[in-house]
């Protein structure tokens, strides 16, 4: 648990661009799970893109500004002090902006200048705490709370939990991680494992939890991304997993896309299913597949879920 535990039962919700596009199923399932668990999400007003993975390559300070604007609205216009971002990219960028603003004078100056020119209040480090959807459920409901609420246990489902890059690296932007018992680990993250286990799943020993899917170059260097994704898919299958649970729209879509691309361009077929952890939790809590956007995924898992008695 974070030391200065804020109340996460009602938080500002920052879906980000991907959740309005290819990551739609993640948006739907996150909201549905929140509602089912009695947690309140208030969407950030007039939010903008956090800078994604691309803006920092043009200029990292612009990314810091973009992310700071989201936090500024949360703090100064909505008067809230916690923002929850389910997308690893958004979560990472907001955390990074927080770090830069607290530690780098030049970034703070650029953000102040841009905020003034844009006509809104400047975000000041410390006004808002950014959390991931994993933190949100873990710290409000927790494993015990989930166990009590499970209607359709995921028992008998073998899951490889895939966290990706942006949730754990670089370490310095996540001061609350690696902070002793109960905190998340950047080396061996376990929050998703904990939650899905509470929902009844069997987590397999998966060595590529924090491997890179090549998401930054999913289109600009597709061959590289296909190779990296294929490593992940194969490792999951070799670990005996039936499902890869994801927590990021970029990773998720990357795995789905390059699963198809690997088959088309390299002739390598893998059949492991790819589902958002919120979809899995939702099903376990008794939500219908449609309610957690199963049909919005690119890869189809309906037959598999039927087999497991979840659809």
């Amino acid at each position, binding site marked *: 648990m974070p030391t200065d535990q804020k109340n996460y039962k009602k938080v500002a919700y920052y879906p980000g*661009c*991907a959740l*309005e*596009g*290819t990551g*739609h199923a993640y948006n739907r399932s996150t909201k549905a799970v929140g509602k089912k668990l009695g947690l309140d999400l208030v969407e950030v007003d*007039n939010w*903008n*893109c956090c*800078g*994604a*993975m*691309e*803006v*920092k*390559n*043009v*200029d*990292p*300070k*612009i990314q810091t*500004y973009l992310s700071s604007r989201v936090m500024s609205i949360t703090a100064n216009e909505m008067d809230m002090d916690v923002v929850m971002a389910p997308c690893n990219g958004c979560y990472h960028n907001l955390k990074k902006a927080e770090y830069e603003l607290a530690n780098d004078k030049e970034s703070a100056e*650029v953000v102040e*200048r*841009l905020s003034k*020119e*844009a*006509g*809104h209040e400047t975000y000041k480090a410390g006004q808002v705490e950014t959390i991931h959807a994993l933190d949100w459920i873990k710290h409000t409901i927790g494993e015990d709370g989930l166990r009590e609420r499970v209607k359709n246990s995921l028992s008998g489902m073998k899951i490889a939990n895939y966290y990706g*890059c942006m949730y*754990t*690296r*670089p*370490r310095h932007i996540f001061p609350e991680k690696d902070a002793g018992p109960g905190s998340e680990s*950047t080396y061996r993250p376990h929050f998703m494992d904990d939650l899905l286990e509470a929902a009844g799943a069997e987590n397999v020993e998966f060595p590529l939890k924090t*491997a*890179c899917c*090549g*998401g*930054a*170059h999913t*289109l*600009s*260097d597709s061959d*590289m*991304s296909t*190779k*990296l994704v294929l490593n992940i898919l194969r490792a999951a299958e070799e670990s005996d997993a039936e499902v890869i649970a994801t927590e990021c729209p970029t990773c998720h879509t990357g795995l*789905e*896309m390059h699963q*198809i*691309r690997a088959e*088309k*361009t390299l002739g390598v077929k893998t059949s492991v299913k790819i589902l958002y952890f919120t979809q899995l939790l939702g099903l376990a809590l008794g939500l219908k597949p449609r309610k957690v956007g199963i*049909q*919005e995924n*690119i*890869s*189809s898992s*309906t037959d598999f879920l039927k087999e497991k008695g979840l659809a």
Partner: protein
Amino acid sequence: MPIHEQSLIRPENLTTHEEKIIDGIDVSGHWSTFIESRVVTDYNEQMEDEIAALPGGEFIHRCWQCGSCTNSCTVNAVNPEFNPRFWIYLIRMGIESELIRDKDIIWQCVSCNKCTYACPRDVYPEGVMKATSHWLELKGHTPQSPSAIFDEVCTDQIVDTGKIEDGRTLRRFMQKTGQSLLQDWIVAMIKQLVSHLPVSLLAKMGLSTLIAPRTSGWSGARRALKRYIEEQQTEQQMAVNPVVAGEEKH
């Protein structure tokens, strides 16, 4: 054994002779392999400073060549020629011609930050890779990489509307890089998606590729960002190539 990951001796500089006598001594065969010496005359003493002046390159001077970055690198595991430690060495030594041999792969860094996680000196090698590929482009050593084109497509869209819309990004990028949208894997993916997607969502997604989603109240931010980006671009060009940038301006 990180430090041995890259040999400075190239295969083409190794020679053996079937039969050779030098000064009456027999130097034939494998046991007398010669390494042809190579002479570097074109040290670029500014190279480290130039790269350090670009975003991400700031801490290159801290590197002590431990090799942890290369050892942990995602792309290195796929292609051993991709070697951040070695490139940092070349940059700090100013051996420009050697660095340029790898100019077409440096941009392939996937920003996974495994190197940043492993680096004991907080060099932020990921940033150095980005600064280096940026530098190669600013210097005219390489055309804009696909990755840089993608960065630009996304950034332009964000500055303009406040948001990114996947469909538009895909279309613009494919157009700018001269690729077809009808590659069989893209077609297969879309077919698969459409086959089970609810019609209402399909309509919504189709609509958003036509009418881009926008952040309301964005015009002030757009103006501010445009002005700032212009300033930064001139500054970066000046840092790398003061003469050319100066001439262009006047």
